[in-house]
Structures are given as structure tokens and as C-alpha cells.
């Protein structure tokens, strides 16, 4: 096994809940609660979960876009949180993020060419003369035309803006791209274009992805390993083949069985979960999933299951496995 590109160890990120006149902290939302992920070069790690699972927060803390509460994040062996700001800034081009909302993630007053090229200049990765060529190259790589370079974001559709966002990250030759729900704001036909682009770029540029999504069919299509999060904790991680063929955690099973499949009259066994996702500010005791789990036993409410290795590349946090 090769050395990990990104090593997230026992990461915790708590958000304070403030209330009252004096803005006192009255509690904490454990958005990320003891998560470990190892991502190897060239792979696509899919992080799935429902709203409130903390998957986006993992993505942002993984590249130190927000501060952590506890734990370590090492990029090629360098502890990101130990770096002084200037060093971190120099490292930024290697760690890129692609946003969910292609509208708010582009500055409306900056031309596309400048938005893509400015970081190149800023980091001295290209001279003024070279920038335009580099930008044109990356535009065509992302399926955009050269005449788009002088236009403003508002002249583009959602799908094209997402391509611009990808181009902006790609021009810096990143090693890791965190993609936070990059296709969920797009229409089906445009989704397919962007998913194919992600895949092609991985082949041509040897990229590594942390791909965050709530859409399991997209994750299955794109990812080599998958982690399933529930209320800030990791329920299960496994290779794609294992996870989709034989999910071990009851939550993964329920999640997979809930995905609507575009084949009419398909008979399948469905595990319909009871109730709603609990409030992340006040998660259930023991195993956080026990309130909705169809297989829960007394122990699940009392004792938090350990996230343990169960052979191969599989890790599961469940008492019953």
C-alpha cells in the first residue's frame, strides 16, 4: 500500500450553540465527531450521508478551511494545522475545493479568465504572458470555449459555471480535490456531463478526490472507496464493491434500499426507517442510529459502538456486526 495522500485522524469539529443576551455558549453541535479517513493517491473516496451528517464539515476541515476542534489532518505527512499561515497559503494550490453552488462560488464581478488565472499569478506559478495560455488550456480541458475567457459569470448556465469552478481548481495542478456535492445543484443531463468530466480529469491528471455527496448512485459510479456518515460519526467505510454488494451497517442498508431506482415495477426489499434524523445538537446516546435502527438492541442505547476493522478494507461501527 502506498503512503496516504491525506490522513485524517480522529478529527473533531464542534460548533458552539450560543443563546441569550450575553451570547453564552449553551451547548455544542458535534458536526464531526471522531472521524478518521485515509485517502491514497489516485483514488476517489466517496463520503455519503444525509443532511446534518457533517460530511461537508469534514471536507472543509480536511483542507483547513475552518478550524478543527481536535484531531490531526496530514497532507503528504505534513500536519496542516501545524503550518503557519504563510506556509499554508503556499500549500493551498495543492488542495482544492469544488463547491456545491456554482452561483455563489464565483465572484460576479470578476471575468472568468481572471478568476481562473489570478491564483496562478499570485503564487508565481506562471508569468503574465503564460497565464492566458494556461487558462485557455484548462478551459478547453473542462469543455469550455476560448471566447468564454472574457465573460462574466452571470452569462453562464449552472453547468457551465460548475465547469468554471472546476477549471479554477484544476489550473493550479492540485493533488487533492475536495468536491462538495458538485453535481447536486445541476439538472440530470448536465450532471452526467460533469460526472464524466470528473472521471476524465482523474485519468488525465492523476487527481485524488474526496467526493462528498448524498446521491449514492453517483458515488457508486465515481468512487473507489466509500464512507457512510451519520450524525457526525462514521458508520461504515469499505471499498465500493463491498459496500454496494453487501452493506454491513444497518444504516447503510437502509440508505441503499431507499434510493429510488429508475426501473418501474422493480421488486426489492426496502428497509423503511422510522422517524426523522435526530437533531445533531442533541444526538441519541450510545449508537447514534439506535433510535431509527430496525435491529437495535438494549446495548445500542447504552454503549457507543467502536469503529472497528472487520477484514479487508472494511470498518464498521455497529455492535451487531
Amino acid at each position, binding site marked *: 500500500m502506498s503512503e496516504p495522500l491525506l490522513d485524517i485522524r480522529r478529527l473533531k469539529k464542534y460548533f458552539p450553540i450560543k443563546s441569550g443576551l450575553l451570547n453564552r455558549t449553551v451547548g455544542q453541535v458535534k458536526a464531526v465527531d471522531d472521524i478518521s479517513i485515509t485517502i491514497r493517491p489516485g483514488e476517489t473516496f466517496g463520503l455519503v450521508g*444525509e*443532511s446534518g451528517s457533517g460530511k461537508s464539515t469534514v471536507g472543509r476541515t480536511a483542507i483547513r478551511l475552518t478550524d478543527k476542534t481536535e484531531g490531526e489532518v496530514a497532507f503528504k505527512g505534513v500536519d496542516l494545522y501545524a503550518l503557519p499561515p504563510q506556509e499554508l497559503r503556499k500549500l493551498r494550490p495543492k488542495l482544492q475545493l469544488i463547491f456545491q453552488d456554482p452561483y455563489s462560488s464565483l465572484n460576479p464581478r470578476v471575468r472568468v479568465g481572471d478568476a481562473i488565472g489570478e491564483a496562478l499569478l499570485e503564487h508565481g506559478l506562471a508569468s503574465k504572458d503564460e497565464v492566458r495560455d494556461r487558462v485557455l488550456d484548462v478551459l478547453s480541458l473542462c469543455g469550455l470555449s476560448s471566447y468564454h475567457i472574457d465573460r462574466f459569470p452571470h452569462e453562464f*448556465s449552472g*453547468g*457551465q459555471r460548475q465547469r468554471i469552478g472546476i477549471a479554477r481548481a484544476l489550473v493550479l495542478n492540485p493533488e487533492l480535490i475536495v468536491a462538495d456535492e458538485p453535481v447536486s445543484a445541476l*439538472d*440530470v*443531463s*448536465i*450532471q*452526467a*456531463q460533469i*460526472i*464524466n468530466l470528473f*472521471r476524465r480529469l482523474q485519468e488525465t491528471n492523476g487527481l485524488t478526490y474526496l467526493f462528498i455527496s*448524498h446521491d*449514492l*448512485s*453517483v458515488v*457508486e*459510479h465515481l468512487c473507489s472507496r466509500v464512507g457512510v456518515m451519520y450524525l457526525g460519526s462514521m458508520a461504515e467505510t469499505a471499498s465500493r464493491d463491498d459496500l*454496494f454488494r453487501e452493506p454491513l451497517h444497518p444504516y447503510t442498508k*437502509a*440508505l*441503499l*434500499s*431507499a*434510493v*429510488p*431506482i*429508475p*426501473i*418501474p*415495477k*422493480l421488486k426489492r426489499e*426496502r428497509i*423503511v*426507517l422510522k*422517524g*426523522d*434524523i435526530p*437533531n445533531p445538537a442533541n444526538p441519541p446516546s450510545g449508537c447514534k442510529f439506535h433510535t431509527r435502527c430496525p435491529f437495535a438492541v438494549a446495548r445500542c442505547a447504552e454503549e457507543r459502538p467502536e469503529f472497528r476493522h472487520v477484514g479487508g478494507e472494511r470498518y464498521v461501527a455497529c455492535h451487531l456486526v
Partner: protein
Amino acid sequence: MRDLLTIENLRTHFFAPEGTIKAVDGVSLRVREGETVCIVGESGCGKSITALSVMGLAAGSSGKVVGGRIEFDGRNLLELDKNELRTLRGHEIAMIFQEPMSSLNPVLPVGEQIMEPLIEHLKLGKKAARARAIELIAQVGIARPEQIANAYPHELSGGMLQRIMIAAAISCSPKLLIADEPTTALDVTIQAQILDMLRRFKAESNMSILLITHDLGVVAEMADYVVVMYAGKVVEEGEVTELFSHPKHPYTKGLLRSKPILNHRQDELYAIPGQVPNPLELTVSCYFHDRCGQCMDVCRSREPRLREAGERHRVACWLYEEAVAYV
């Protein structure tokens, strides 16, 4: 089965400073009693505007129904006056929306919002209405209905609110439920619960459902009959199994192939090239022609009509024009 809702040649246009947007342009469809019809399409195709037109909600500051007929249970909805329409809405036709949070009044307890149509349409007394509201909340699968009835919208999750919306919608046993992307804002596990529930209510009360969605998975699970829209027009329609197994229009085919399916792996997804045309710049043509792999000369200059292409299966595409001529 009897036709409950018949839409004929509906045209709803929006008037922007830049020009006229033909959001719905000559759409016809039928919903029969006890049937679930899905309108599927991408954003901007006019599927939501079609539904809003039925409710009489599309006409606003800039929008107007400029032509067509909407016949519901023997009455032309476009000719009803405001009062008649009001007694129909929420009573015989109910609607639920994508964002339950914004369709509920934030300063009223949810129980009272379910009681409103009961008092208004069924003329129930306050006490009876409250008892019925609590019953309905229990029916949509919410535990502790008495307490939840007193809760305000902001105290409940999105999934709970959508259930409340459904409870309010089915409170007067409507003949038709229009659901505009009812599960798009919800998580998959919650979506599964809501869809299950809608199916159950439909089976119990012989209610018809007009479901608007962009998700082909939801369509496959829910629909009896499917209408595919593109740029304000119906491009194909048919029974769900027929349409999914033998799609005819290149757009429908493309849509079906471009979505990754769980446990059906493929190396490269099929992607429809290009994007939806600018609604202000449409010319007489098949609106899909510039994205179509089988585009012919005629597609660029003439608009194809919806034609029979099999048992309860219609398509608007020049590729099938000759074949139809022989039938």
C-alpha cells in the same frame, strides 16, 4: 377509468422586459381517476408552471394563461370565478410544494393550519376540526400527534413539515393531489417514507396524483403514466413501463441513460451534450435539435407534433413521423 383532469393545449406565458417566455406552450395531458401521472423534465421545462396553472396560481405579476382548457371533473377551471376556484382548491384539488417550510405560516401552530381547510370546506366546528387534525397527523406517521399539533413550523424538521403539508392536503379527501417536487428537498430515507405514504393514501382513497419531479427514480416508483416535458412542450408520454423500456424520443432516451443507476455500473455515463435552449431565443423547430444526435434538416425548421407511437404512447419527434404514417 374516467378522466378527472384534462388539460388541452395549455399555454402559460411570462412577459419579461427582454421578451415573452413561453413557459408552457401547448401542453395537453390527462389524469384519470385513481391514476398517478408524473410530469418529468429539467428545470425551466415548464412542469411546475403547468401544475400552478391548474391551481390558478401561475397568473401573477408577469405570468398569464393565454390559452387552452383545463377541465376538472366536468368544469373548465379557467372560466371559474375566484370564489368557485377557492372552494375547489384545498377541497377537491390539493397541492403540496417542494419547500414545506415556506408554504406553512411561521406564526401559526401546525395543527391550526391543518384545521383551516376542515373548517373552511367541510364546515367542521373547532373541536371536531382539531380532533380530525390530530387524527390526520397520526395518519401521516408522526408520533405524539397532540403535542406536534401545537408545535410551530420552525420547531419541526423538513420531513415532518412535509408530512404536515400532506396531512393538510388530504384533510378534505381531495380527488386530485398535485405534488410539485415533494421530496426534492428531503433526504433519501425520508423521501422513501413520504413516497410510501403517498402511495398508501392513493390506494386507500382512489385519489389521483399529479406528481412533478425531475427524478426518474421517483417516477419509476410512483407513476402509472409519464409525461416528459422539454422547453415548455410535451415531447413524449406513455405508460411508465412502456416509456422506460421503449423510450422513443432522443431526449427521453438520453435522460434515462444519463443517470447512474445503483448496481448497474457503466464506465462512462451517456451525457446529453449542450444545454437547455434560452427560452427567449426559440425559433420554429424541434427545440431539442441542437442537442440531438439524430438531428435531421427538418428538425431545424419545423416543429414535430405529438403522435401516437403505440398503445397509450405518444411522441413528438420527426424520427417517427414516417413510421406513424403507415399505421
